[in-house]
Structures are given as structure tokens and as C-alpha cells.
């Protein structure tokens, strides 16, 4: 007797219902959160940052690559003792998170945390580098 691949008619109903339930559960997070997307983070600038107009590099670069930039800064400062950064427009900066970056962006809660919370990343920079005492958790 040839074994058939055909599903027996009695089981078909059970399988379809089972599939429907599975799909409902699997897609639950999508339709449950539909239309409730968290708003795009809007980091606030301090007066000092607004006055400076430009950061060390342009805004798009800083937005996407500031972590790579900081990584390079950290290694060159700590290991090579090179602390002067000259950007393409010739502006010079002291390569220091505490004294350069966080001097302008002294508003951790309204600037750094905005995007970090949105992206659910937890950098531990502020464990050692100044965090404003006002913002102590």
C-alpha cells in the first residue's frame, strides 16, 4: 500500500486552528505595539553647545560615529599621549571626554540619555567621567 502525503480530512481542522493560534501568538508583539512607536528622541542642547554651533565633527558624523571617535580618543590619549585633535576645518580640540565633550554637553539627562535610552544602550562613561552632581541618580 502506498503511503500518502495527503493529510486526513479529520486532522485538517485541528492543524488550521493550531496554525492560526500560533500565528496570533507569534505576531502578538507587532500588532499589540502597532501605532505606539516611541517618539524619535530629540536631544536638547545647552546654551554653550548652541553657541558653539559645530561639534568636533559635523552633526551627521557625530550622531552615527561618536562612539568610534571616543574610542580612538581614549586609546590615543591614554596610550600615545597625543591629546590634540585638529578637524578638517583646522579647529583644535583637547581630546577629553570630561573636559571637552561634557563641557558643552553638560546636560546628560536631556542630551546623552535621550538617545541612549531610546536605543537601549548603557554606556558607563559617567561612572568615572564627570556627571553633573544635579543629575545623580
Amino acid at each position, binding site marked *: 500500500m502506498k503511503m500518502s502525503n495527503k493529510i486526513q480530512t479529520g486532522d485538517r481542522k485541528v492543524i488550521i486552528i493550531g496554525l492560526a493560534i500560533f500565528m496570533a501568538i507569534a505576531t502578538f508583539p507587532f500588532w499589540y505595539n502597532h501605532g505606539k512607536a516611541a517618539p524619535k528622541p530629540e536631544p536638547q542642547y545647552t546654551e554653550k553647545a548652541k553657541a558653539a554651533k559645530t561639534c568636533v565633527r559635523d552633526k551627521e558624523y557625530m550622531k552615527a560615529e561618536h562612539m568610534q571617535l571616543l574610542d580612538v580618543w581614549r586609546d590615543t590619549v591614554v596610550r600615545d599621549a597625543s591629546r590634540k585633535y585638529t578637524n578638517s576645518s583646522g579647529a583644535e580640540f583637547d581630546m577629553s571626554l*570630561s573636559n571637552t565633550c561634557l563641557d558643552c554637553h553638560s546636560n546628560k539627562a536631556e542630551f546623552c540619555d535621550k538617545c541612549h535610552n531610546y536605543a537601549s544602550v548603557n554606556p558607563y562613561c559617567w561612572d*568615572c567621567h564627570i556627571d553633573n552632581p544635579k543629575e545623580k541618580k
Partner: protein
Amino acid sequence: METSRRHFLKIAGISTLGIGAKPVLDVFASGGGEGHGDAAPVRIDKGADAMTAKHWGMVIDTRKFESAEDLEPIVEACDKVHNIPKLENKNHEIKWIWEEEYKHAFPGKGHKFVDERIEHLPFLVLCNHCENPPCVRACPTKATFKREDGIVLMDFHRCIGCRFCMAACPYGSRSFNFRDPRPFISEEDHNKKFPTRMKGVVEKCNFCAERLAVGKMPACVEASNGAIAFGDLYDPESEVRELLKSNYAIQRKQGLGTDPAVYYIV
């Protein structure tokens, strides 16, 4: 035609591969994440004021000290500049530069008839920034390393707190942060220009690398009223070499072969 199971699985497998390959190819096509904003050239170099040396060294003239009071402002200056916490518990203490008795600082060099001045004189001890540092060899993560100018430095970002370096250091120059140091730094002593440390890292004297980079002498040297000299050990004209030429000076535990860069005129 009835589809066989084998045939179905083949089609499904190839489709999955096709779908999966697309995003991967896209990433490669975009060139590894570059291309955000300006790709303009930047330059990284040492500042104009930065001081350089072949091997930084220190000469402490202990003849200029009489009692612990003379050393206090020196230790204080360092503590303040580097945000060193004041911890009550001796086991948790963080020390960069501190006082030590002769017999502990120089074991094996004292004898039972050692002169009275030396016997009671407090000695300033700190990291020796050895020319052959055993801590660097012990560190499994290269968190501690010897810089080109001879300074043995800590990269706190890399330190995993294993404390091998503390076991390796024959001078006890290293301290471990058993507790978060921040609550133990008073607000008026907090130097915002220098980072604090976090719980779980080892720290020690850094020969004020951050001050040398802007052309300043180490904090202890500045606070010592000329009792501590600092300079390049390999520059025969330097202040430290001049002092070593004309005075008898000793190193701590010289027999171990670590070749400390801190010398004591006794």
C-alpha cells in the same frame, strides 16, 4: 504532479538562503559602516606644551624633610588633583603617594644601628615607574602598560580587576577599588577636570601624565618646595641626573631588578 517532500525541502532551503543573503550583501556593499557625514582628514598629535622624555624619573631629597608634617601638603596635593577617596577602612584605602618608615620602604638596607634621623624619618613612597615593570608582565589584559616615555600607566577602561598586578608589584604601589570611590570624595576636593575611578579597578600613581601633557610638573613636585626633582633620566643635562651625579642615592629593592625610576637621596 505531486511534489515530493525532498523536492519541497530543496526549494525551501534555497529560498531561505536567498532571503538571508540579501541584507548581508547590502552591508558589504555599503562599505562597513563608513560614509556618515564628512570623511575629511583629521590630525591627532601631541600638544605644543607637552613635555617628552626618554624615561621620566624622580629624585627625592629626603634630607629636606624632617617630619610627617613636611610630607602632608605633598600627599594632599596629589590626592586633590587625582580625586583620591578618603576611605576609613585601611583595607579599602587608595594610595598614590604616601609615607613609609625606612625599614619598610627599604627592607634589607637598614641595620640595628641605623642612624636616628633615618630611623624616624618618614619616606615618601609612590609607584616607581620601573624600567622593567613586573606589573606590566602580569596584566592579562594590557590594562597596565609602559608608555614610550617610561611612565607605567593604567588604562582603567581595560582593567578587569584581577589584581595580578598588585601581587606582582614588590612595592605595594597599587590599590584596588573595593568600593565605589565617588561617595568618599568630598565636593570641595573633587577635581572635575580629572576622572574618578569606578569600583573594581586597580589604580596607582601616574606620574601626573595628564599634567606633563600640558607642560606642568607633577603635583607632588610642585608642592615639595624643591625637595623632589623630576626629569629625564636619560638626559645627562637634566636636573635629576645632575642631582644623581653629585649625591649618593638609593632605589627601593634594587636587588629585584625592576630598576625603579624613583631615587632617594639619604
